[in-house]
């Protein structure tokens, strides 16, 4: 039986000589990557050009290899990250962070060309991650929906909100 199996394997290998070649001449020839391809991680901005990340820590919590580290700044009203760091030498590009992100700030883009000589160069800080645009979600601005007041958006001015009530009024 072993002999038959070995001969069959040799035969199949031999047949491959006549198959169409599958080798892609990368990097001269780039493969097609769908917009949803999970490559390099970026931090996007909202339609007003502000940072979308509100440092809620959900991406860090969901990351299976614990490669996202951030710290909320001391600002009490509009939350932003003081630092935001992704260690791409640990990242497995699973996209959980993108799924967990409640503000569509963190997005994975179809760019995977991140090879470096030293691992240290794969540690990306916020300035390396931030892009100028809104990425895949063009319209969403978390603070227009959230109930917290931010500079320029007082209480009751968010989407689907009534103006603040007068607690001393007894009318329904």
């Amino acid at each position: 039986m072993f002999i038959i199996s070995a001969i069959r394997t040799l035969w199949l290998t031999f047949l491959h000589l006549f198959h169409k070649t599958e080798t892609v001449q990368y990097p001269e020839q780039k493969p097609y990557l769908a917009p949803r391809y999970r490559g390099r991680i970026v931090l996007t901005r909202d339609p007003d050009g502000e940072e979308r990340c509100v440092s809620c820590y959900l991406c860090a919590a969901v990351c299976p290899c614990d490669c996202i580290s951030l710290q909320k700044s001391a600002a009490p009203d509009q939350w932003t990250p003081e630092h935001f760091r992704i260690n791409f030498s640990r990242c497995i590009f699973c996209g959980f962070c993108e799924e967990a992100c409640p503000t569509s700030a963190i997005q994975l883009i179809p760019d995977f060309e991140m090879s470096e000589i030293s691992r240290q160069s794969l540690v990306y800080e916020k300035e390396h991650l931030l892009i100028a645009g809104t990425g895949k979600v063009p319209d969403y601005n978390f603070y227009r929906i959230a109930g917290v007041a931010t500079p320029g958006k007082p209480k009751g001015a968010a989407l689907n909100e009534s103006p603040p009530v007068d607690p001393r009024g007894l009318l329904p």
Partner: protein
Amino acid sequence: MDLNHLHLDVDRTIITAQPGQNVLEACLSAKLDLPYFCWHPALGAVGACRQCAVKLFNGPEDHTGTIVMACMTPVTPGMRLSITDPATAQFRDRVIEFVLTNHPHDCPVCEVGGECHLQDMTALVKHTERRYRFTKRTHLNQDLGPFIRHEMNRCIGCYRCVRFYRDYAGGDDFGVFGANRNIYFGRATPSTLDSEFAGNLVEVCPTGVFVDKPFATRFRRKWDMRATPSICPHCAVGCNITVQEREGEFRRVVNRYNAALNGYFLCDRGRFGVDFIRSPARRRTSAQRDAQGTETPLDIAAATAALAEPLQTNNVIGIGSPRASLEANAALRLLVGPAHFYAGVSDHDADIIATAITILRDAAVPIATPADAAQADAVLILGEDPSDIAPILALSLRQSAQRATSEALAIRQIPVWNDSAARRSAAGSPTPLIIATPMSTRLDDCATACLRPAPTALLTLAATIKAQLEHPSAADPTAIAAILCCASAPVIVVGGDSALMRAAANIVTTLRRIGIAARLSILLPEANSLGLGLFGAPPLSAALAAIQTGSAPHVIVLENDLHRRSETGPLEHAFSHIASLSVLDCIETPTTATADLAIAVGSFADANGTIVNQEGRAQRSFKAIFGADDPAPSWHILRNAGIAAGRLEATAWAGHRDLIEAMAANLPDLAACRILWPHTYEGDMQRPPTLPHRYSGRTAVNAASHVREPQPFANPDSPLGPTMEGTMPRTGLMPHVWSPGWNSVQANLKFPSAAEPGVMLFPASTRIPAELPLPHPPSPTPGILALPIRRVFGSEELSNLAPAVASRVGSPILRLNPADAATRGLSAGTMVDCTIGTTTVRRSIALDPTMAAGVAGLTIGVQGEANPPLPGSLTITASHPGEPS
């Protein structure tokens, strides 16, 4: 079959319950998941939120059942219930859907997200879809001061905050406004919340309306912070806290349930005072100062070597501290020898502590825990106001005063947990709370009688009470003896004066002799006062006298600011005689500023340590902050200096346990501290982990400096593991209280036995305590007798350094009787210079009409000021503005 248990059939599963519980409590204790909002184990049930609906069947034949609220239904034997019944499940889903109609889309930017009871309950009822298509009502926030941030939009109207703040903690500056869907929880005008228990609103609120403000500036999610069980260092009650840390930086303090002490609540000094760890006043580097006063920074090895120099002589005086752990004090005492070890406390404090030890150890008077105080059926407060010295004890005393007696409840057939009805029954028949103090207290509002005797009259009063208890026929003008005689478990709280403490102990002894289970609670000034007292060392004045003889030219001061303990004159005179002054401290103080060698040591959160609270309960706190450049604990530095000085005995305490053994061998009173070490957790893999299981960012947190992950911290001296590895116990010392689906603090209901009680050094005995001899009455003080006023915010050294607490400190006052003030031509608000002994301090006059005549209250513990030697004779002179006091 255990007759003390009932059996309930919940969805065909039999659970056990305690008689007197409600169904919700019974279900939660049996680890069944039943959602609720308005119920709280300490606040009881009011049945307001309608979330805990269950179906109750009327016997085995009933298949229809009735929907009832579990929190308002007492357990009865053989009860048959259903939680999973589709009708009740739908009922609960509709309730939470209504609750969420106005809840904002805030979770990602809410500090409570991830430990939110509302999130947990929403997930529990599986409510996912918002069907309400109208607008959300919104509210304006109020500025509630440095501790709490208000985010009123998130309110779900459960009323827990007002029930805690007004009904439980007795505050009156916070309430509920508006009607129906507009109800608003806040103050009449936006301003700082007055109550010193306001910080508990953060934990009482089921969602994020009240946010810990200092924590929000260095915010982390709960799952990202190392949590370490610890003991509050800010007063002698010894409340159990959990210190949370991330990346070597202190983040916040949360309550750690201990049934005997703090229960579910902390005071704001404990919750927000620990932030002193991050204060700029922390001493982070050691330094040597030469004769010209120039400081040379030293690394820890050089500092240890410099400390070893004086230790090579045998003439070193060691001055211990009531804010240092037993371990640190023991290490210093072992190095300098018992004859050269002094307690760094004033004569008055030393007298109080020695008397407390006599009462606890020698006379074996039964001591009241705060839990006992809450259950007392009569309370007598003598001498000092517990609300400023031991706030959590005062909170417990308030519960006893506000509680309806068990007879009153039994007559009306009201269960204890039925909060609203029980409070109404208490209104007509208050539990006696008698306050006999020279000054007004903040418990006066719930007291049944307030007496304001001067200190000498107070001693006479205590003696009279005792005489009346012995001879009931004696005249009883105050009727206190009669009230104590009618009680079955009275508690007497005493503080401020050793003779009064003895007299109070004698009242308890007399009550015990006539068969009444009375207990005593002694107010002590600092976190480890009693522990330091058990070293039996003479006070600071004796150390200064010994220094002046010149026999010991070197002095080592341990975590102590001597300028707070002694008058400046004698201190400076004594220090002019010494060759070297070495000070080990975690903060910058006037004493470290004059030291020849100032060594930075770890705070209570940087070391494993044991402290003894005012009941004689030894409790251990653990290293909670893990940073790269942590200062070493005092006893590590003392040990290494001892070894460098060639002291062989120091080599015998290489580890924490060895030091405890050495301490126990030398001081039999502290031998019980040995059993505080949980031997069962030996071996790294079995230690309870201090990092939560979803601790994030481990491969990125240090990547900015180096992409390679560092080794985890080792913490061999602790029974707690410094990593995520380990086994979480179900009882005892639990760094994290968490149960699947229960991410909020409410998870502690799932672990009813998860408290760590500590070890009582003087266990309660059943024998009648010995009667104590009373000292001769003191000769009357000429002029005005000044008594210390200790304030919750501003009188404790360490908490003063926390920025949030510092901003709550009011201006120091001199409290006077209006008559006394009028005879001296003083009015409220006048600035005066107060001289006691040789110390003069500047104070503004505050009038207290109820105050005893001839007595003045003087704020002590003011930051950057020498404490005057109180109590003492006071001279008041008009102050001239601009002139330094």
